[in-house]
Structure formats: C-alpha cells, structure tokens
C-alpha cells in the first residue's frame, strides 16, 4: 500500500530525513518509535503533504501512485488520514460542519454522491457514541475550548467517520490519561481491518500495549535503524534508545 524509498526531507536548511525506507502492506499496523527530534513528526507531515517540508530526494508511492505529486486534499481523497499531534482550533466552525464538508469533499473526489444531512447526522451520532463523546462536542467549534484529551478523541472520531485506507497517528497518546488512552485505542482497534493500514508514531511504548503493532521501527537521525516485531518496543522501553543509536553508529563506521 505505502512504499517509501530513500526519502530525504529538508525543513529550511536542515535535513531531517536522510534516506528513509519503509514499506507498509495492506492490513498491517506499523509503529515508528524514536527519540525527540529524530524526524517522526516530519514523516507524518510529509505523508500528509505539508508544503513547508521539502522533499529533496526519494519517492513515496501510495497504491502505486506518486504521492508527492498530489495536493494534501487529494491525498485525503485517496484515503490518507493524519491524526494530528496538535489539532488546531477553528473558531466559529462547528465540528460537525467541518466533518460533513470533509466527508463530502472526499466522496466527491471519489465520484460518489454527497451524504444527505440526515444520513450524516446518523453516522456522526453513532461514531460519537462509540467514542464516548457528548453530542455537544459536535456543535461546538472545531477543537475550541476542548481539553487535550477531547482534542485527541475528536481526531479519532473524525477518523472513524472518514474511514481512511491509511491512518497515521502522530503521538496520539501524548497528553492522555489512562482512561482516555483506552478510549482512543479502542477507537483505533475498532477500525483495524484487512483493508486498512496504520502508521502509529509514538515516543512511548505504553500506547502499543493497547494498539498492538505488527512491526516496530526505530527512527534515529532521520533513518530507520532497526525494525522488528512488537517485542522491540518492549526492549526499547527497558533499555532506552541509546543502544540502538550506538548500534547504528557502529554500522555506519563499519
């Protein structure tokens, strides 16, 4: 589904990703872990199409299409969803309004008829209940005055409504207490299917107790330096990132 080859990315003058390779097949859940500043969020933003990140080398294929040729909204239409680390506030725009516009824009991109108000209302209500969110959050302005946990929950709620093919979760666990973490994880797990893939970016292993990945990758210095199964995450939790960094330095020197 997703194929990243030798990806180099610059922000301003600084190169953040330095030849990243990653392949995600349909139905798989991958986790990217790594220390602060290793380029985890940069990867998420580049996949979603953020303009301020400059791809200097490499390619990204999504379902065989050249992703880098597509505008952010086209990528959304193709089925890429990013749950933001810091969801923005949009004053005066009702949560439900943005979401309906979003869903119908995506449907239009796919040549489908827009969903009627009533149908959308039913869908939103159903997903809202699943996420244990009060109805009032639908009518409130997008993320305005939401607590940290509500914002993250809102991201997962949007994901449930938009039903992406590839969902990227950028540190969705940060700032969540254990109850919220569980609700968010349940929301994600409910969407796991053989047709859908996930890229879960996290600093801590904790989230992976709830969203159990098929593969874990360690991102250090702009490259994936180690990959493994879910047990790698536990090892990282115990030993920190130092030893992986050391291993990768030695590999470069040799």
């Amino acid at each position, binding site marked *: 589904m997703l194929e990243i080859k030798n990806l180099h990315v610059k922000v301003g003058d600084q190169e953040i990703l330095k030849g990243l390779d990653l392949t995600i097949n349909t139905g798989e859940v991958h986790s990217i872990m790594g220390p602060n500043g290793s380029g985890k969020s940069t990867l998420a933003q580049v996949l979603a199409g953020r303009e301020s990140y400059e791809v200097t080398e490499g390619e990204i294929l999504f379902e065989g299409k050249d992703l880098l040729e597509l505008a952010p909204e086209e990528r*959304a239409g193709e089925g890429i969803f990013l749950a933001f680390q810091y969801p923005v506030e949009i004053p005066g725009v009702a949560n439900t309004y943005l979401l309906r516009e979003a869903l119908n824009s995506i449907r239009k991109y796919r040549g489908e008829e827009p969903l009627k108000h009533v149908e959308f209302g039913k869908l939103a209500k159903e997903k809202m209940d699943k996420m244990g969110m009060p109805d009032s959050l639908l009518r409130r302005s997008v993320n305005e005055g939401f607590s940290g946990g509500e914002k993250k929950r809102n991201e997962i709620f949007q994901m449930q409504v938009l039903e992406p093919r590839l969902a990227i979760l950028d540190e969705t666990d940060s700032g969540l207490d254990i109850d919220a973490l569980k609700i968010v994880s349940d929301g994600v797990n409910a969407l796991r299917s053989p047709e859908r893939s996930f890229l879960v970016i996290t600093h801590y292993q904790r989230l992976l107790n709830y969203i159990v990945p098929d593969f874990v990758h360690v991102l250090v210095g702009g490259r994936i330096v180690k990959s493994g199964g879910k047990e790698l995450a536990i090892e990282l939790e115990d030993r920190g990132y130092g030893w992986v960094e050391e291993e990768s330095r030695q590999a470069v020197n040799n």
Partner: protein
Amino acid sequence: MSIDLEKLAEQEYKYGFFTDVEQEIAPKGLNEDTIRLISNKKEEPEWLLEWRLEAYRHWLTMKEPRWAHVKFSPIDYQGISYYAAPKKKEGPKSLDEIDPEIKAAYDKLGIPLDEQKMLAGVAVDAVFDSVSVITTFKEKLAEAGVIFCPISEAVREHPELVKKYLGFVVPRNDNFYAALNSAVFTDGSFVYVPRGVRCPMELSTYFRINAENTGQFERTLIIAEAGSYVSYLEGCTAPKRDENQLHAAVVELIAHEDATIKYSTIQNWYPGNAEGEGGIYNFVTKRGRCVGRGSHISWTQVETGSAITWKYPSCILEGDNSVGEFYSVALTNRRQQADTGTKMVHLGKNTRSTIISKGISAGHGQNTYRGLVNIGKDASGARNYTQCDSMLIGDKCGAHTFPYIEVKNSTAQMEHEASTSKIGEDQIFYCQQRGLSAEDAVSLIVNGFCKEVFRELPFEFAVEAEKLLSISLEGSVG
C-alpha cells in the same frame, strides 16, 4: 499552496454585466439647474426643491473629508451625471410594464421581480440607477398598514411624513456627502410602520447602478412608530467598468417608543479589478435615532464590494433604556479599501450598545475599523460592549483599528475587546488534510470568523452572505 492563482483571479465579479436599455440621462455636471431638473422629473413640491437647493448651497461651502484611512484620486463632481432613468411609459407600474431587459437583468442578479417567483415573505423595491422600477407586495403590506414605496412616491403620496422626517436624523449640512445627497438624491425606499404593527414580511431594496458616468444618490427613510417592528435588507451591485463611480447614499432610521428596526446590508458593488482600476466609491451616511424609550436599532452589514467604503452606521440613543447594535463584516481583497465602523451616542439613561466588527483583509486590501462610543453626562447606567476582530490573509494587506471612547458619566460600563489574527497555515492544512481544497478551507475559516455577525441576518440572506464571502475571497490564497 498549489492553486492556480491566475485562473482564480479571473473568475471575478459575476454581477458585472451591463443592461442595454433606453435611458434618459441628465447632462453631466452639477448646478442649481441640475437640481431643478431632478426635482421637476420627480414632480416634487416647491418645499422640497427649496430644501435641496439649500443643501446644495451649503455643500458648495464644504470640503471633501480626508480623515479616513483611504487613498483615492480627486472626484470630478462636474464629470458625473446626476440623473439616469430607464425610459418608460406613464402611469402606474405593474410588472407587465417593466422593460423586459430590466426584468431580465434582475433575474440574472437572482432577484426575480415576479411575486410568484420570489422568496416567500420578502417584499422588494428595485432601484435601477435613479428610479425605482417596481415595489412588490405593496397591497399585502398596505393591509397591515405598512407603507413601503419609493421615496419619490412617498413625497407625492405622504408629504406630511416626508416633510416631518426627511433630515430628522441626518441634517442637510451633516457632512460633505450627506449634503451632496440632500441636494441631488433621486430614489430609495420609504418605510412607515404604524403603531403596534409587526411588519408581516421582510422588506428589501435592491440597488443597481447600470448607466455609465453616473452616480447613485439614494435616500432611504424608515419610521417605526411606537411598539412596531420592521426588518429591512438592502443589496447592491454594479457593472464592471474602468472608471470609478460614486455612490453617496443617506439612510435615516427613526424608532419610537419600544419600536425595533433591524437594518441589514449586503453590499457587493463592483470592487474594481486586481490592479485597483474601476469600482464604486461607496461614501454613505447611515444613522438611526432611538427617540423613544426602550426603542431598538440594529445594523448588520456585510461589506464585500466597492473600491472604497466609507460608512459608519450609527445610533443616537436618546430614549431611556434604548438599545443600539452594530454587527459588521467588512472584507477587502485585491486593492479594495474600507474605512468603516459605527458611532454609538448614549444620551438616555440605561442605554445599551453592542459593537461586533469583523474585518478581513486579503490581497492588497486595507481594512480600517473606526468607531466612537460616546456616553453623555445624563446617560447614567449606560453600557457598551465592543469587540473588534481583524483577520489577515497573506502579507500584503493591512488591518487598522481606531476606537474612540468618550465618557462623561462615571456610572457607565465599557468593555472593549480587540484581536488581530493571521489566518493560520495550520488551520488551512488541517482542513486540507481532511479533504477540503485550500480555497474551501479559507472560506470555511473566514465564515467561522464571521459567524457572530451572520447569525444576525435573516436566514436566506445569511446563506447568501456566506456564498458572497467565498466568492469575494477567490484568488486570495497564495
């Protein structure tokens, strides 16, 4: 952002067409004979001609105000024609007698003049250059005792009301443009709502400038007797031309005891092209007097058009417990300039006013909020709340705020909030990631920003205003 700016900038102003009708146009220039000609065309009584002439003589002694934060080249007042009217047969106006070209023009503007086709519950007065071509639902309104007609007709049919109230709020010598308007005003709407009557429908006037090298000088007068209610809306468009055209209107509102007047404007005059050529100079004086106790005047304006906007819809709160409100969205894109705001003058006790102003600047637009809140010495218990927000889109535009506060009574309560924000790349990207185009994202965010004002508009017009804002923003994202 990956948007074809050139292409977007071209889908400009969709109301820029010209209607080819046989016109009667007064020779260019302004002197006492011009005024006599207008007065004669309108078959006005002698007192009104005198009233006009006095205004004109006073105007000659006045200078164009230059304190507004706008730039424009001098206006040649002798280069304008002050009267333009489609030629028509004599006699009462019915729909069949309207020139089909004019009817077609209004259809194209989305304002069908056919009563069956119209929005239910909205009566329209259609003013084409200097004359009103039709007023719909007049009979139905008359049943409720409401008078809704062109002001030139009111001069003939209801002279006692016009004589009593014309200039009651905006005196002839009030300011340069008001004086000019008083001398040469041609048409506009007249509304009278009798005591205790709730006007059964929305009233609206649709102003269209069509002829070349003319100015439009309309005059609107709305009187709400004790305990009455009326909601009125005006809309405005003009053809695309390279020359600037002057629109200098005067609107006067009078609210008696416990009466309410809601006055909404959707102003979409031709804004000029991307280089700032052409467009309407919209120099307007709008003011209401809350003369009665507990009276209420509310102004809502959505200003998206015009090359230059200079207007301050104001309230004089004379009656105790009277209320004044001003809700404004002003958008400047391309090279547009707007200097707009309000004056709230508190004279009566326990008077209250609310000001919500939303300024949006895009392209090379310059947007200024200018407001005065004046609490008189007898206005004990007066309260004002002002909220003044500016949004910038891009880095070549400007937002300016000039709030003036004068308080002469120590019991007054004043609240003032102001903010300036730049539309966030983050916000746009967030919406794009969810599937919206950058253009749709901007219009969604801007509409959200304006929500507090839009919800003051009658429902149908709120939808219209949102669409208009989106169209006016086209080409603003880069």
